[in-house]
């Protein structure tokens, strides 16, 4: 798995946004170059992103050098943590999302459930919606990186399934998350 990932890395880097604006990085006022990415080459085979009308989608090209990730990214890492009341993917988790994107692109047969969660503050129903919004945010990013939407399922648990049962900021930070469940 890792080996396959390494070969796909250069292509993936090309298709990753420069900024980390999460759900909103396609805003008009941002000065980013866009490019059409018809397919992603994986080893000997060509994994296309066809089937979802994405042959001519817009992806943002980056032209800076690769930045060392803040988080040790490996496919073993399957959780993205969020800020309070935010569904924007924090910059330090973008590499992790990229990694999973390349993994999913490399094998369209893999599917993953994006499980959105929130901390316990505020109303349960609003938090259920917030958890979904976080999962949507990760899905949008994965799709922009070439993953077929058909590989992705979203479910929100809101605040109902905390990773940490504590009632403090440390617990809340761990609970605001999207888990990728293969």
């Amino acid at each position, binding site marked *: 798995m890792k080996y396959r990932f390494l070969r796909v890395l250069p292509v993936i880097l090309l298709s990753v946004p420069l900024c980390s604006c999460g759900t909103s990085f396609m805003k008009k006022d941002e000065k980013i170059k866009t490019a059409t990415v018809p397919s992603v080459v994986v080893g000997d085979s060509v994994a296309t992103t066809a089937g979802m009308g994405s042959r001519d989608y817009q992806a943002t090209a980056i032209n800076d050098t690769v930045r060392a990730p803040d988080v040790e990214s490996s496919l073993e890492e399957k959780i993205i943590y969020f800020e309070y009341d935010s569904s924007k993917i924090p910059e330090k988790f973008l590499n992790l999302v990229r990694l999973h994107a390349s993994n999913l692109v490399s094998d369209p047969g893999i599917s993953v459930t994006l499980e959105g969660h929130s901390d*316990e*503050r*505020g*109303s*349960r*129903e*609003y938090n*259920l*919606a*917030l958890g*979904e*919004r976080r999962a949507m945010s990760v899905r949008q990013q994965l799709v922009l990186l070439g993953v077929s939407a058909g590989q992705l399922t*979203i*479910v*929100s*648990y*809101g605040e*109902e*399934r905390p990773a940490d049962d504590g*009632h403090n900021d440390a617990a809340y930070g761990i609970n605001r998350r999207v888990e990728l469940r293969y």
Partner: protein
Amino acid sequence: MVVCLIACPVLTSAGNLVIKIEKGVVKPLLIGVIPFKTGDEALPFQFSKIISRNLERTGLFSSIPLKDMPQTALSRSVNFKSWTALGVENLVAGEVKRKGVEQYEVEFRLLDTYKKSTLLGYRIPFDPSNSRFVAHKATDFIYHKLLGKQGAFTSLLAYITVVKNSEKRKVYRLIVADSDGYNPRTIVKSYEPLMSPAWSHDGKQLAYVSFESKNSAIYLQNLSDGKRQLLVSGKGINSAPSFSPDGTRIAMTLSRDGNPEIYLYYLSTGQLERITRHGAIDTEPSWSPDGDTLIFTSDRGAGAQIYSYKFDGVPPKRVTYNMGTYNVRGRYSPDGRKIAVVHGGDDGYQIGVLDLKSNIYEMLTTGILDESPSFAPNGSMIIYSTMTDKGSQLAAASVDGYMQQTLEQQVGEVREPVWGPLIR
């Protein structure tokens, strides 16, 4: 991967003013609830205790502690003077008698110590299974006589509990209990989360959300026979059920079209009607008592606020203004004049009540994490969940803001209390 599904029905527009009310301003009425006589044998019923706690919970009464009572048992005569000297205007006294095997009768009177007269008296037969109900009924009589308002002591509460079992696994339960939190009955038990219980207006059914199929889904269940039906499931969020007052529809939140929106589910046909169309989060619908208005939470404007919709095609109007950026989970008072909300700010989350006519907004509670307000069916109190050192527990506050108290401690977490209707 191991799938752990077990969920089984078990029997059984202008600016709002913010006012922070200081508690204990008004002196509650002093009342003496004398321990009920039980003849020669000790009986396990706690009529006087249940009645005095019921009355105290309203914030309108203060009952004299046993040790301060000039008379702890009434034989033939009442020494009225000894009570009026303490400022006690009313006395409740009674007796429990055995009438047969598992058959009893309670007799009680409400006395006016100044007029030296009996205000009311009742004799009610009971058996051990409904002794608490009879005590609540007795409190209803007393409350109505003294205040001229209907009591809600016989109404029921529904709420969710979370308890870890011996294998440290979380067990979720939907519970129905008496209005004082006693006599809990498990309605649903599951290893997957349960949330958002909602009463039908006849008190015979509960709608709720269960994650037993690995996503939120809305179920409807009879209290009498435990039969249940899956109402809405499928892609996205299926949550926040709220019965229309006429019982024909359930408002709910679904995100099947890609975003959380408010829908109406028609119980007779199973058809869905979409109400909101906005890219923001729209959730937590709640009906006005006359059924003409739906309020819901939306983050379409500044922060998360309460909006109202009148089923007339006019875009929803914002209800909560000048109250900060987080006012959610609105619930109407039974008379439709007020809305209770969860207010989030620098001091955490508390319950506030907005008067729709005057636009005066009062903070009712003082916890750090108070949630899920629900009005008593007579509008006198609000039950909610509050964070304690033992986790989430139930608490009640009088709507005038003078009283707030935590209900009897339960095992594990207790959350999302919803007060059922008055059953006559």
